[in-house]
């Protein structure tokens, strides 16, 4: 394996030649999204359309085409995900307050008698969690969290009390601290970099998993609500 195959001294000409079309694609997509937003009066639609603007941002970052760019995509992605979640929650709470108690929320029984809903979720969820456990870090967290989320969403696990919720949130807070300790070890005691790496990777993994799993707990409220 020659060194140039491992790490070249400059960015490869393929990436350089693709930079212009990539940036144009991103700008076009963003423009379409922005124009649509500027014509949009419905708040929910605006929220959906911001997704496209986010796509433009991801392409802009990816177009740099280095390892650095890849590691910068992850924050962008996370910011996008995080904001969409917080804002959609605010939108719902606003509408709920606006309508007040006059409109009673009618809990609907959901009759989904699909074969796939009984067998698939457990299997897929287990696969995802196992796979996520291999990956660690952000990716692993997102994958495993997606598995948990999916499981919670499609299974009848009702009645998760607030305590459990706070417990999960607390666990992810501790995981965050683990990651922080790992980060500090890197610079205070560089000899133990391996320990720091493991702390960091698993801290972020646990944190992201639990956090994503929480979405499922929130989602359960809507999709699996039965007559109270």
């Amino acid at each position: 394996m020659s060194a140039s195959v491992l790490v070249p001294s400059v960015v490869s000409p393929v990436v350089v030649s693709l930079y212009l079309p990539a940036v144009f694609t991103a700008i076009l997509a963003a423009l379409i999204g922005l124009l649509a937003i500027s014509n949009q009066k419905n708040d929910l639609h605006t929220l959906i359309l911001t997704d496209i603007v986010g796509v433009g941002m991801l392409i802009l970052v990816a177009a740099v085409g280095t390892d650095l760019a890849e590691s910068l995509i992850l924050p962008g992605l996370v910011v996008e995900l995080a904001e969409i979640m917080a804002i959609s929650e605010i939108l719902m709470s606003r509408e709920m307050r606006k309508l007040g108690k006059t409109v009673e929320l009618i809990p609907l029984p959901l009759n989904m008698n699909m074969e796939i809903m009984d067998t698939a979720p457990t299997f897929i969820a287990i696969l995802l969690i196992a796979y996520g456990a291999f990956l660690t870090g952000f990716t692993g967290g997102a994958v495993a969290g997606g598995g948990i989320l999916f499981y919670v969403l499609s299974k009848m696990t009702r009645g998760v009390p607030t305590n459990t919720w706070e417990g999960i949130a607390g666990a992810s807070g501790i995981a965050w601290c683990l990651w922080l300790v790992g980060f500090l070890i890197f610079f205070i005691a560089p000899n133990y970099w391996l320990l720091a790496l493991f702390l960091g990777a698993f801290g972020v993994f646990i944190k992201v998993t639990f956090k994503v799993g929480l979405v499922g707990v929130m989602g359960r409220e809507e999709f699996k609500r039965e007559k109270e």
Partner: protein
Amino acid sequence: MDLSTLGGQFIGIIPLGDIVLYFTTFNLFMFAAVLAFTVLIAISRTESQVEAQFGTLKDREKKVGKAEFKIRRFLAIVCGLATAGAMVTGDVFDFTLFVALIGIVNIGIVAAVKEIDVLDSAFQYGIIAMIASLPLFGGAAFILASSGTLSLLEIVNIPTTTLMLFGSILLFLGVAGETGVAPFFATKAEMFRTPGSPFLLIIHLSSLMVIVRIIEILLIINKPF
């Protein structure tokens, strides 16, 4: 061109791998001021608004509930720390992340209130913050693509290209959107109608301080001479 032309005396750096925090008089002053405000917020109670009621002679008192108080104080402290970080970071992408953190926390501080109007402006502000993530990260990516580095301490020695100028304009728009600054303050001003002034202070503080800081960064990236 060096950093001391803009911010006064160069005091020192804190290296964290590729991300280097640096201090000039200017950065240090802003850092200290933001931290002072954060401490003040952490120890303060909230005020209660007293409003006259129609029809009677009674007053209505609007207070911040205990659960609301706790979460908002927590978010306000996080916001203060993030702002303090944004004051001293010497890395463009790190700065954008700090700004994104400030944006999401700001939304959170107002999302915890009950007034519909305030929630509405929180939502509109959130939408702007989401749209603004495009110019924010996109601008940083342009700067990276054209200069080959993200560290301000290196960029200061690189001659400006047109793409860097374009990237920094985008960066500025992104920061403006993410912190809700001119002329988008209208959404933000609406959010201040709710009680809880110490927490609202941090929203305003963060946006103004970040704007001051982004001007320094823009001047570092774009060297007119």
